[in-house]
């Protein structure tokens, strides 16, 4: 776990987003810059003012893609770091930008992520790995194993799981940047193509293309860069953890979000906030079961009860635990390197009361949780 305690207060000064979906005519740097430039504009800062940049992405599109993208804005010579941390690559880039500022090294940092995820089931291991013969490397099959076990242990119904996907589409229909824009019904979700039972297609996130960016600044440097203090959002906690002993001694993760709980407990401790203080949450809903287990691991809902909370509408925008308000991975889409920063983007909009038709009333505290292979888990808490 993190050994250091925060030093300087860090703020999110600006955010930017490229829509999520499929963009065959655009290369990765183009996608990335169409998020970066709006983020700089949102913060009201110039590219030449940025002192360090972290770029989250996973799939190979050539070497040093962060440099390749930002070079088009001008070669300023700042350190640019490419970050690969699976589905948490973007949130890891954001975490690094935070720590670069809070420790006093930098005043103004850029975190951005972009991805063009290939179609088809997502795998973790290399193509020549033994896993291809064994048949165990299949991300959604892993979620399906968790889902069947969860349903047995908690009594969750298939319709409750499907409701997670329906809610995601409802939120995404209010979001012009989302990959999936059509709403659907519980029946549509359950009758969609079976991927790895009991997980149907519409209970799995799409593989997407897209980009997201955030500009971070030290609170004590806000006026130096003429940044509007009223629109800056405070980072109350930034926690990253990777795989620990999973209690089973297995050669795969325990297929539970077992790193979320320790990361969340540290984030609550650092921020001085409690689960009941959280007004809205973005969690890693790569599959419907993911949202339920993450909400429970974050201590926002007691273990085994998130499916019922979903049925009762508590996780809707109008509920008491608004979850994945922009559509989440399930409907907003999942371009790996962008996803973690997309969550920050949505949280910032909500806390600024700029989320339009999907605005959560009186949102003051937002939590973003992102998980990836290697059991990389980030938890960020933002406050207004």
């Amino acid at each position: 776990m993190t050994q250091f305690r925060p030093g300087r207060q860090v703020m999110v000064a600006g955010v930017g987003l490229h829509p999520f979906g499929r963009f065959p005519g655009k290369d990765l740097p183009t996608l990335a810059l169409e998020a970066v430039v709006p983020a700089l504009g949102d913060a009201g800062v110039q590219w030449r003012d940025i002192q360090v940049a972290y770029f989250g992405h996973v799939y190979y599109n050539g070497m040093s893609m962060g440099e390749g993208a930002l070079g088009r804005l001008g070669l300023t010579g700042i350190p640019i770091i490419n970050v690969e941390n699976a589905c948490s690559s973007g949130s890891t880039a954001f975490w690094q930008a935070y720590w670069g500022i809070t420790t006093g090294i930098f005043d103004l940092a850029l975190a951005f992520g972009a991805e063009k995820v290939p179609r088809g089931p997502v795998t973790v291991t290399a193509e020549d790995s033994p896993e291809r013969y064994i048949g165990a490397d299949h991300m959604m099959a892993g979620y399906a194993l968790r889902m069947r076990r969860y349903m047995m242990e908690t009594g969750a119904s298939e319709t409750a799981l499907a409701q997670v996907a329906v809610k995601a589409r409802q939120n995404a229909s209010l979001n012009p940047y989302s990959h999936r824009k059509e709403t659907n019904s519980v029946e549509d979700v359950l009758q969609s193509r079976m991927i790895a039972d009991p997980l149907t297609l519409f209970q799995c996130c799409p593989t997407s293309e897209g980009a997201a960016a955030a500009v971070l600044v030290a609170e004590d440097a806000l006026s130096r860069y003429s940044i509007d203090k009223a629109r800056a959002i405070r980072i109350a906690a930034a926690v990253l953890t990777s795989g620990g002993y999973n209690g089973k001694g297995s050669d795969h993760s325990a297929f539970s979000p077992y790193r979320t709980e320790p990361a969340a407990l540290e984030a609550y401790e650092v921020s001085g906030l409690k689960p009941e203080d959280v007004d809205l949450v973005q969690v890693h809903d790569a599959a419907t079961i993911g949202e339920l287990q993450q909400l429970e691991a974050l201590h926002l809902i007691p273990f085994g009860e998130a499916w019922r909370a979903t049925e009762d509408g508590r996780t809707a925008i109008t509920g008491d635990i608004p979850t994945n308000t922009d559509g989440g991975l399930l409907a907003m889409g999942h371009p790996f390197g962008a996803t973690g920063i997309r969550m920050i983007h949505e949280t910032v909009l909500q806390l600024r009361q700029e989320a339009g038709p999907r605005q959560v009333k009186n949102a003051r505290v937002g939590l973003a949780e992102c998980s990836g292979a290697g059991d990389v888990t980030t938890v960020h808490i933002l406050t207004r």
Partner: protein
Amino acid sequence: MPESVDTRRLKLTNEERTEGVLLGFRCLECDTVIFGPGTFCQRCTSAKLEPMEFSQTGILYSYTVVRIPSAGWPGPVPYILAQVELSEGPQVLAELVDCLEDALEIGMPVELTLQLVQGEDSSAAKVVYKWRPANQPSPTAEVDP
């Protein structure tokens, strides 16, 4: 002769390559049992690991029927992917064979079985560990010598 799919996880024990054992380690300092390769203990980081061979049976912890497989999967579609808990503790993911979908039940006992798997394209054939329902006669010889 075909090789084990992963010699750190499966040791073949007869000349015909039809029998084998799953491999792992026990930590001599904290007693944690680990399936598969390890140089240091996952839990306490000790290097004092003792190689161990696991028993041939386990319990079905969870399962899924994979209908859209990952690229490179050389087996049948759909296939059953089983998450099996060994009596020694670790869980091992592998295909479950010789079982109808309707007969699947969490908690059912399963046993190790080996199959010769021809890789996609010109990839080499490997002996791969699988699970099958325990105490059930084998329908066919699994591996041609």
